[in-house]
């Protein structure tokens, strides 16, 4: 029995979700960047009314596909478990990562439902109501960062514990990933300002943070796929020898 | 020259304190702002180099990172001056 059965498919759901997120959440959802908190309620409502149809489609797709963050986390869990079993450890890190992945999945889904509600019938809604709902979505999306930080710190630490001469994941990738998710601490500033680089659509808290996050997503996805290939090879080599 | 003076961490420390004082004075007292800002950023870069070389022993670091940190030090100092000047 191959312990890495399904792992490759699960690992591919990660990059697949990235593409989907860019198209549905990002482009259709009008999130590159999101609407600035500096917009007045009337102006904001006008924007929503103008783009309601595409935002709705974006969120209608983004919500169900977000489950792929969890399936991707399961692939990472399988790789981490292999390392932890070899090290004779208690598999705590892979557990933490898995839960972090599950929680992060909700962090994708719930705000999208809020933004979907905003785009549902904006023509009859009071602009201020639309605005606070939209703000609420972003408060949840941005400020629940520690769930993702926890997930990827556990991953990074586990990758650094790999005792192979050529580790499954190189040290730089583990450190880069952990650095990016710790940098989310910058989001602390987001609820305190209404415009500028630290706002939800600003140069730092949007473009820099999310840009780094997307790069990290690619890095982790690539090394997870490579790791599964190597682990499968190791498994078959070991079992062929018996 | 910095290498010879700051041979030991203690000398590096004294030198750092001394030039910090200089940059503080430059900021507070120098009338000609362009010169003051150049002085402040040059001294900042010098201080960072001293810390990299004498406290952190950056020469033991991987080559790529060492070069990157040198570029970072001068790059940021230079960029700060350039952007300051662009606002005048």
């Amino acid at each position, binding site marked *: 029995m191959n312990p890495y059965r399904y792992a490759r498919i699960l690992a591919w759901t990660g990059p697949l979700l990235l593409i989907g997120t860019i198209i549905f959440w990002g482009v259709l959802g009008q999130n590159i960047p999101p609407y600035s908190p500096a917009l007045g309620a009337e102006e904001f409502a006008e924007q929503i009314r103008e783009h309601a149809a595409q935002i709705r489609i974006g969120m209608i797709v983004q919500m169900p596909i977000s489950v792929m963050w969890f399936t991707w986390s399961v692939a990472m869990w399988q790789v981490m478990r292999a390392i932890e079993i070899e090290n004779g450890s208690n598999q705590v890190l892979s557990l933490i990562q898995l839960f972090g992945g599950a929680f992060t999945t909700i962090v994708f889904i719930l705000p999208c439902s809020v933004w979907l509600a905003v785009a549902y019938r904006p023509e009859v809604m009071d602009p201020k109501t639309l605005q606070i709902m939209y703000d609420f979505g972003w408060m949840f999306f941005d400020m629940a960062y520690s769930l993702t930080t926890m997930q990827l710190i556990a991953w990074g630490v586990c990758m650094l514990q790999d005792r192979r001469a050529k*580790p499954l994941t190189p040290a730089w990738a583990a450190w880069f990933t952990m650095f990016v998710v710790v940098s989310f601490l910058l989001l602390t500033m987001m609820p305190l300002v209404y415009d500028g680089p*630290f706002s939800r659509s600003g140069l730092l808290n949007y473009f820099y943070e999310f840009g780094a996050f997307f790069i990290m997503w690619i890095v982790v996805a690539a090394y997870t796929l490579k790791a599964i290939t190597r682990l499968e090879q190791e498994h078959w080599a070991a079992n062929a020898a018996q | 020259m910095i290498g010879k003076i700051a041979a030991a961490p203690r000398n590096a420390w004294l030198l750092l304190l001394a030039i910090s004082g200089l940059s503080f004075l430059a900021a507070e007292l120098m009338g000609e702002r362009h010169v003051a800002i150049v002085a402040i950023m040059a001294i900042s870069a010098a201080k960072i180099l001293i810390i990299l070389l004498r406290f952190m022993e950056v020469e033991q670091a991987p080559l790529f990172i060492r070069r990157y940190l040198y570029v970072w030090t001068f790059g940021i100092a230079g960029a700060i001056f350039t952007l300051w000047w662009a606002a005048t």
Partner: protein
Amino acid sequence: MQHSNMAETDGAAPAKRAPAIWLFIALDCTSFGVFFLVFMVQRLGQPVLFDQSSQHLDAGLGFLNACILITSSWLVAWANIAGREGRIDHARRLLLAGMAVAACFGVVKIYEYYTKFVAGITVATNEFYTFYFALTGIHFIHYVGGMVILGILAQGPSRYMPEAMAKASYARWLEGSSLFWHMVDLLWIFIFALLYLIGAR
């Protein structure tokens, strides 16, 4: 089955991770570099506001904090050399001294923040102050993290490991942590220049 999986495993891997702290330092400096550049770009449109706000900061306190961190950094560098040479007790004393000096940085910073809040200045007062609190705040988080690590190291090598292993591990952690601490000092140099000095007068 487990043993044949270990075919590619050997003890060499951990040593190769030594450059890790340097990589972290490079990443952190890059991040701060981006913040510094964004600060200066935001200043382009409003230099008078930025400079006037900067003048409300006490450059003397910023300078004092620079001296405090430089001194603390020196003591920790010294501690690292002692630790490398096996003089653990000497290293621990130097670490404690370094922490004692650095504690003053925290006091000064909290005092500074307090004077701002009392004057009604907060994160949202204007863009300069948003950056002031953000930059010094993130730096402060690094400072606190560094102090915690130094505090743990000041306890000496682990009592739960065989002595030789504990000493080797301690020397490695001391090396990495002192590098991190120097980075905290190094970043303050640019932060001090940006926030307190270039807007002066």
